[in-house]
């Protein structure tokens, strides 16, 4: 399957994921690995902005947000601490089965690095019960788009400041973000680069999906111009403040 290694800001990244899903019947399955440049927040399709983001802190830190086309929760995407994947595949399994199969790419990536990661339904990957990866999915035209994170060196202090904790966590008394979230660097006790985790991710997802990943450029897919119009949606107030 085709492998794209193209990164941009939050609006570009979400637009390219949406476009790859929209064009899936023409161009077939694709996988992407990317980062958010600059760091940004994404919120789930149904989330209310004020309930998901500490807007004052985000503004102070110069971190903007974009609403995703996928459900799920808010995510802080650290430019220098997270690799994001997105996969477009025929939607042959149930939602829950496909979450498990694709998240296995994250599990295998981390296990190759020596981290005992496990899938935690519905859509997380955990290490010793601490979240290290979250994913979200949507479906159209018989295909699914699943995108998700692998936190390798995310600044948890920033994450804690800009995201409002879900009510359930406050109720459980898990007040510290370090009680419930971890990163690959914290697990291994050493620094990890984007390129290092990328090379593990390519192998991990190739194994999980049972397919060879062949890198292509945006030019080869002739879709560069078509991204712009979708990008405009993700830059609009109407979309981002929908709820």
């Amino acid at each position: 399957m085709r492998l794209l290694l193209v990164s941009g800001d939050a609006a570009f990244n979400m637009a390219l994921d949406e476009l790859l899903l929209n064009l899936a019947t023409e161009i077939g399955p694709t996988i992407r690995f990317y980062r958010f440049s600059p760091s940004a927040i994404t919120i789930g399709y149904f989330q209310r902005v004020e309930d998901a983001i500490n807007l004052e802190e985000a503004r102070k830190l110069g971190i903007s947000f974009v609403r995703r086309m996928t459900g799920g929760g808010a995510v802080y995407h650290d430019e220098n601490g997270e690799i994001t994947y997105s996969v477009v595949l025929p939607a042959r399994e149930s939602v829950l089965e496909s979450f498990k199969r694709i998240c296995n790419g994250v599990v295998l990536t981390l296990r190759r690095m020596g981290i005992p990661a496990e899938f935690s339904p519905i859509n997380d990957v955990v290490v010793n019960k601490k979240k290290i990866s979250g994913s979200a999915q949507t479906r159209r035209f018989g295909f699914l788009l699943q995108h998700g994170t692998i936190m390798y060196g995310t600044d948890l202090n920033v994450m804690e400041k800009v995201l409002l904790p879900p009510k359930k966590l406050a109720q459980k008394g898990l007040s510290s973000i370090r009680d419930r979230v971890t990163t690959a660097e914290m697990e291994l006790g050493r620094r990890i680069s984007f390129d290092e985790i990328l090379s593990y991710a390519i192998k991990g997802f190739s194994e999980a999906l049972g397919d060879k990943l062949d890198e292509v450029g945006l030019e080869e897919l002739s879709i560069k111009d078509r991204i712009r119009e979708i990008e405009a949606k993700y830059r609009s107030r109407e979309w981002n403040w929908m709820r």
Partner: protein
Amino acid sequence: MGRCRIRKEKEVDVVVELESGIIKKVIIGGDFFAFPEGRIDELQLRLVGAHVEDIRRITESVLKSCEIIGIDKSDLIEALEKASSND
């Protein structure tokens, strides 16, 4: 304005504004998944102008072919009804 949050594996968070038993405004939020997502938007549109007693019937009808993950449809109906009674 009434509000009700119900958390199962995921959360649904509903805000309803009523006037003489008629829904004036409704926001269905949360971190659940819905396939297709647009059915939830459609439900919001269909509920505006409807009588509060019709919440269950309208929701069941609009979400007939919608798969919701993380909460049950009954949780969404309960949240809509409770948010309405809180207003």
